[in-house]
């Protein structure tokens, strides 16, 4: 392991400082881009505009520190963990730190996005460097005051000391430090010296959450704000023909009924716009009827009183049709080859045995607990947008374009989000509310009911995999994976995930069917289902090869040479260590009678995860008792937050594999609320025990990687218990069928 305190930075141009008019030091920095030489942070704290910096640290004259956390918080914990990293290097007691959510810089491109579990991974260096730079400036200021050499001074817990035993608090020297140059080279702490990183730090918003303080987008209010409920087509493929608003308008709380859609259509019909696999397909097709109410209830009641006539505009699709389309693709010849090693054709031609399976998954809605909503106030001077969005920059840019405004006039404030899971990457509701506010010229909040939310449409696409393995002389000689998906296929480095590199003849092919149903990212896109398919397949392969499922993975991983192929980013060594930790902690193969185990391991989002599911049978039905999880995410910044992410990800993975079902008939979603759409509930949850591989390597994200292995480990445990092979999600349907067959 590299000694990290010898690792110094010299790229200093992303940090600027200024003395605050009110006293104290303001440090502005930009994670991913340099700052212009001319740009300095404001001296007036109220003028923080995040224009050139995406985060700030304020050190007040009393030594207390405010960290303006830049990235959107969707429950993944970055509002706590990112400031922890700054505070560690700044070396202040965590009790002296206050965290505030930063606003969006709409003009300066940066990665102010919650998605892909990348906030911590990308922020790690810049956050540490910024904290350390501030500390060094404070030490330099104290040294100058004492007239001693800075190298003879040190700082810890907000106090600077010199060799004579003199002490100064950070607050005593902030105003002097603000006058100093930003130092060129600074030294970071050794990981062994960490006092905050690696300790449990409770969510910084905890008090507000548990006492019900306004925090979320739905809670945001301004005087005179109106509410908007939007009536959209009930089915994909339909558009508005006509509507009658007379009953809605007769309601005392309804202020107006308008239509929107024109601006979005104009924007989306630009030649350059890539409409494939985008939220906007549905939005661009039609006008929507909007009821403006005095209250939320007025708007909802008004929407329910609307009478609209819809007409078919494009194909009315159904789940049966998707099934057929995807099967045809899998059995067809038109594929894009995403990775090809050796000669798969030959491997299969000369195989002793071939195992082939098809795995199937449905569409899934995200179902964030906080339904989609957003606030907009459009005036001649500015466009003010407030609410929960994972991609504030993109939203601001589209709104500027939609309303034909300068980007500088569009200001986005981010609220805490009641879940994201990928849904809030897509800003359709932001564009809608901007168009509404532009039309009515009054501050307005768009609100969605659960029915709107579940049927207004961005879903995980339905996907099928066909996986085949060639066996020769008791070894896997060939592996061929085909993906057929609705709208879009696996992307980036996913085709290079395990078992790429471990099997000589290896090929991944993809094909897709273009649907008018909008699809997009859903927590751990593609791998949320791909991992189940592959990890179930490997379990069967182990049976076929008469070897232990874990041993099969370990043997295959021995074939992988780390660093040999730049596309292969998983580390065989790290994966082996992770698997071994899971096997040890779960007592793999040594459980008491009646307990059945299933194993899966998966690398995604730069994190290695291995899971063992323990189930028992109750009246012949599987009861998921326990999940043992081993994780290598490098340094664990905030263990309590990290475990929370894994616990949630695993149960989410089990819940959706078990119960998640979503179908279409004549273009219409068949479930629109929780009375028929089943999410996992407490009664059905296992206890999740999480163990981290000890590591001094840079941290990686945890929002997503816990989820993908869960479905596979569960399916493998059920197979071990009942012999039932599960290849189709949701499992609950197949299990019920299997039960029924057994009883007959």
């Amino acid at each position: 392991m590299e000694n990290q305190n010898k690792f110094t930075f010299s790229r200093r141009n992303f940090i600027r400082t200024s003395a605050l008019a009110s006293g104290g030091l303001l440090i502005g920095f930009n994670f991913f881009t340099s700052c212009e030489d001319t740009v300095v942070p404001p001296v007036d704290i109220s003028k923080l505009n995040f224009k050139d910096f995406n985060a700030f640290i304020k050190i007040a004259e009393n030594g207390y520190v405010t960290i303006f956390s830049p990235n959107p918080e969707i429950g993944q914990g970055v509002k706590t963990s990112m400031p922890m990293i700054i505070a560690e290097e700044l070396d202040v007691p965590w009790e002296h730190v206050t965290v505030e959510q930063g606003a969006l810089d709409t003009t300066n491109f940066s990665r102010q996005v919650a998605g892909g579990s990348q906030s911590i991974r990308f922020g790690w260096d810049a956050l540490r460097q910024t904290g350390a730079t501030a500390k060094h400036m404070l030490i330099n200021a104290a040294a100058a005051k004492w007239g001693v050499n800075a190298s003879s001074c040190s700082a810890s817990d907000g106090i600077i000391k010199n060799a004579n035993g003199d002490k100064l608090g950070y607050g005593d020297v902030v105003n002097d430090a603000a006058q100093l140059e930003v130092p060129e080279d600074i030294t970071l702490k050794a990981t062994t010296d960490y006092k905050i990183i690696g300790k449990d730090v409770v969510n910084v918003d905890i008090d507000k959450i548990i006492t019900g303080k306004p925090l979320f987008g739905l809670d945001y209010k301004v005087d005179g704000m109106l509410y908007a409920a939007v009536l959209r087509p009930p089915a994909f493929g339909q558009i508005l023909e006509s509507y009658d608003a007379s009953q809605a308008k007769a309601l005392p709380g309804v202020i107006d009924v308008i239509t929107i859609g024109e601006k979005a259509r104009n924007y989306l019909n630009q030649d350059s716009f890539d409409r494939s696999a985008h939220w906007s397909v549905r939005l661009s097709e039609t006008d929507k009827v909007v009821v403006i109410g005095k209250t939320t209830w007025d708007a909802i009641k008004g929407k329910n009183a609307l009478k609209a006539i819809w007409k078919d505009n494009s194909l009315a699709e159904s789940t049966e049709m998707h099934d057929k389309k995807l099967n045809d693709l899998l059995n067809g010849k038109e594929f894009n080859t995403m990775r090809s090693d050796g000669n798969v054709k030959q491997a299969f031609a000369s195989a002793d045995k071939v195992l082939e399976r098809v795995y199937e998954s449905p569409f899934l809605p995200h179902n964030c607990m906080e339904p989609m909503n957003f606030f907009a106030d459009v005036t001649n001077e500015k466009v003010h947008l407030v609410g929960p969005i994972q991609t504030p920059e993109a939203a601001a840019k589209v709104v500027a374009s939609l309303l034909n405004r300068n980007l500088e006039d569009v200001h986005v404030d981010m609220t805490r989000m009641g879940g994201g899971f990928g849904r809030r990457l897509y800003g359709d509701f932001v564009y809608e509310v901007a168009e509404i506010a532009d039309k009515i010229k009054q501050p307005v909040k768009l609100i969605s009911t659960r029915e709107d939310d579940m049927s207004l449409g961005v879903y995980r696409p339905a996907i099928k995999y066909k996986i085949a393995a060639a066996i020769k002389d008791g070894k896997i000689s060939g592996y061929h994976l085909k993906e057929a998906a609705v709208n879009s296929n696996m992307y980036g480095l996913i085709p290079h995930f395990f078992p790429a590199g471990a099997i000589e003849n290896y090929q991944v092919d993809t094909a897709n069917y273009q649907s008018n149903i909008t699809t997009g990212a859903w927590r751990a896109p593609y791998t949320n289902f791909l991992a189940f398919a592959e990890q179930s397949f490997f379990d069967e392969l182990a049976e076929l090869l008469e070897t232990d499922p874990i041993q099969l993975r370990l043997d295959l991983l021995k074939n992988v040479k780390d660093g040999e192929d730049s596309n292969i980013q998983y580390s065989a060594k790290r994966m082996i260590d992770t698997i071994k930790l899971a096997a040890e902690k779960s007592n793999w193969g040594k459980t008491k009678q009646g307990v059945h185990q299933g194993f899966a391991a998966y690398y995604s989002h730069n994190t290695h995860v291995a899971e063992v599911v323990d189930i028992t049978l109750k009246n012949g039905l599987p009861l998921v008792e326990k999940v043992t999880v081993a994780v290598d995410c490098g340094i664990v910044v905030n263990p309590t937050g990290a475990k929370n992410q894994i616990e949630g990800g695993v149960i989410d993975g089990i819940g959706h594999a078990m119960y998640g079902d979503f179908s279409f008939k004549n273009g219409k979603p068949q479930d629109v609320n929780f009375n028929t759409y089943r999410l996992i509930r407490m009664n059905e949850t296992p206890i999740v025990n999480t163990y981290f591989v000890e590591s001094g390597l840079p941290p990686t994200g945890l929002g997503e990687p816990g989820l993908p292995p869960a479905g596979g480990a569960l399916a493998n445990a059920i197979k071990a218990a009942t012999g039932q092979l599960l290849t189709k999600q949701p499992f609950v349907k197949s299990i019920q069928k299997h039960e029924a067959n057994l009883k007959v």
Partner: protein
Amino acid sequence: MANYNLKINGKALTVTVDEDTPLLWVLRDELNLVGTKFGCGIAQCGACTVHLDGIAVRSCSIPVASLEGANITTIEGLANDKLHPVQEAWKELDVPQCGYCQAGQIMTATSFLKQNPNPNTEEIRNAMNGNLCRCASYNRIEKAVALAAKKMS
């Protein structure tokens, strides 16, 4: 529109709303008590849970007209000078992820513990089964209810 006299968090209040307005929207839009959350509108998710005369109910599905004289407690009224033991347990175990459902979870838990101060694991799991947590912070909710019971005994 009509006037309704409500007693919320110990305070007598009058609101002027339509008779079919669910308590949830009276709390959120009329009284600025936004701690009670909207999740499904059909009493399936528990995000809107409040206490009606001490019993956990779904405020999204109770019209204001049926509440004349009732005693309502919301998440805002749970803590007095200090946090309720259930809130303390939630904090101690760092339960929330996104946090949106947690007010409803806490209201269900406090009402449940009043009726059953010494629950076993199965009773906790059954009692909390009506409250969805999309982040699936269920393990911690379960542990926090048990911890709160211990704190209160």
